[in-house]
């Protein structure tokens, strides 16, 4: 962790961050800094001058109506946008002070993990799914131990410990998503990205995963995209509100949801559009 990175770096262009007097202002330490990021799909620009930070060991939520660019932004954090032809990124994204765009992408993706909207386990056993990242990247612990550790972190161990060799597809949707979380956690990422992880799940599985996220904070930093505002309010410490590719407001969650600084934020939160 680079203690030299201070909140002064994360200046927002659009109004508002923090009100003085609250216990948590902008996050004390930033795991990731996004500086003036502009994003293009071919000729069309979809993100405009985004500058924000992801606080270390905190949960940061990205919210906004459909098409506002929150998933696009999230996917730049581990350079997944590069899998799409015609996608272009301008600006800087720093992970612990170093620009991720000039790093080796394979290495980056080990440090920044991702969980997708629909559970997407590999056509392998539960064990092999979690072990996949360990096998290609190398593991400090013996693989079996590392797999158990991850499954425990993902609150799935007790349910699958006697069935590790079974196909991942035999699990329910909620279990499969927790398996994907375990799979991502296995390589010990510093930052975990979740792209609407509960949108394909039932309420009970959703609740389990939300509980999980709050506990995972101690392990790694979390950034989550969600279209469900109540979920953002429940799990996150900081929330960023995006609208049409622009960052409208970025503040501590309690502040954003009770006294938002921007009228557009208030309109979205109170359901006047979205």
């Amino acid at each position: 962790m680079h203690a030299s990175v201070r909140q002064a770096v994360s200046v927002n262009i659009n109004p508002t961050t923090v009100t003085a007097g609250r216990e948590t202002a902008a996050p004390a330490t930033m795991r990731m800094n996004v500086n003036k990021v502009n994003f293009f799909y071919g000729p069309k620009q979809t993100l405009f001058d985004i500058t924000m930070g992801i606080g270390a060991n905190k949960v940061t939520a990205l919210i906004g109506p459909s098409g506002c660019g929150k998933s696009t932004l999230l996917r730049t954090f581990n350079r997944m946008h590069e899998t799409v032809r015609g996608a272009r990124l301008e600006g800087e994204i720093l992970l612990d002070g170093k620009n991720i765009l000039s790093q080796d992408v394979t290495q980056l993706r080990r440090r920044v993990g991702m969980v997708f909207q629909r559970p997407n386990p590999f056509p392998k056993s539960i064990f092999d799914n979690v072990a996949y990242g360990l096998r290609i990247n190398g593991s400090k612990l013996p693989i079996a131990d590392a797999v158990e550790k991850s499954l425990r972190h993902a609150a799935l161990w007790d349910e699958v410990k006697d069935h590790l060799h079974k196909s991942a597809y035999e699990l329910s949707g909620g279990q499969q998503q927790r398996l994907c979380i375990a799979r991502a956690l296995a390589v010990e990422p510093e930052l975990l990205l979740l792209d609407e992880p509960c949108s394909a799940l039932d309420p009970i599985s959703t609740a389990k995963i939300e509980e999980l996220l709050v506990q995972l904070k101690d392990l790694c930093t979390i950034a989550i995209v969600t279209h469900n505002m109540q979920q953002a309010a429940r799990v996150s410490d900081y929330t960023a509100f995006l609208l049409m590719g622009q960052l409208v407001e970025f503040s501590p969650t309690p502040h954003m949801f009770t006294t938002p600084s921007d009228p557009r934020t208030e309109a979205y939160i109170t359901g006047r559009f979205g």
Partner: protein
Amino acid sequence: MNARLRWRKFVSGFMLSVTGACAAVAVSVLFFILGYLVYHGGSSVNWAFFTKLPTPVGESGGGMANAIVGTAKLLSLAVLVGVPIGFFGAIYLAEFSGNGIIAFVVRYAADLLNGVPSIVIGIFAYTMLVLPFKHFSAIAGGFALGLMMVPITLRSAEDFLRAVPRALREGAMALGASKTRTIATVIVPAAYRGIMTAILLALARVAGETAPLLFTAFSNRFWSHGWNEPIASLPVMIFTYAIAPYDDWHRQAWAAGLVLLGLILIVNIFARAILSRGGTILR
């Protein structure tokens, strides 16, 4: 970057080259084929080739005029057999039957027929049209080739008919047109381009078939009159000449190969060009 990661990236780049080489090798075969055909046969594709009949064994000179005409005749017969069955059958599948058991059986039979080796189709045509009449004929050959066209035409035409948007159909029917009239005046014209290219591609496919002709149309060193006589065809001539011991015949076999492949490739490229402009599905 540690050593392990360096190795993994190396492997990734290496495999990119290896698989790329596989693709290059596969594609280069096409150019080798064309190259050899042009090299060996180019000079022999002359006026004599197109206008003269084959000369007696051992004599040089002569051409394949009868084989060219023969292939044309056989293909016309094939179209007469294959296209109506394929086209009207496709109309039944796309417009009248839906997805019931009859449609399933018909499609299954078509797929089965498609997978039958062409020589077995030749055997079938032999038992149906050669054995009873005790002689080879253009009709038997054309029937065999037509049979091979049926599954391709049927499935492709069905796909193109189904692809016509509902809105067009409903528009016509709302104006009071009967189903038949809708099909004839709206749906078929809309699918016309795709169906034509499917027929062209099927033709290009059967134009090169040799095996089914070996004991149906057989061959003929002279002009074939009418439809009931054995008839020469380009593919069979290529086969016969290539395995014979005469250099002059070899030369002509190359020329015939060049002409045959040239025609087939031109039709293929042409058909695909039409289709891609239309932006419809290609089977």
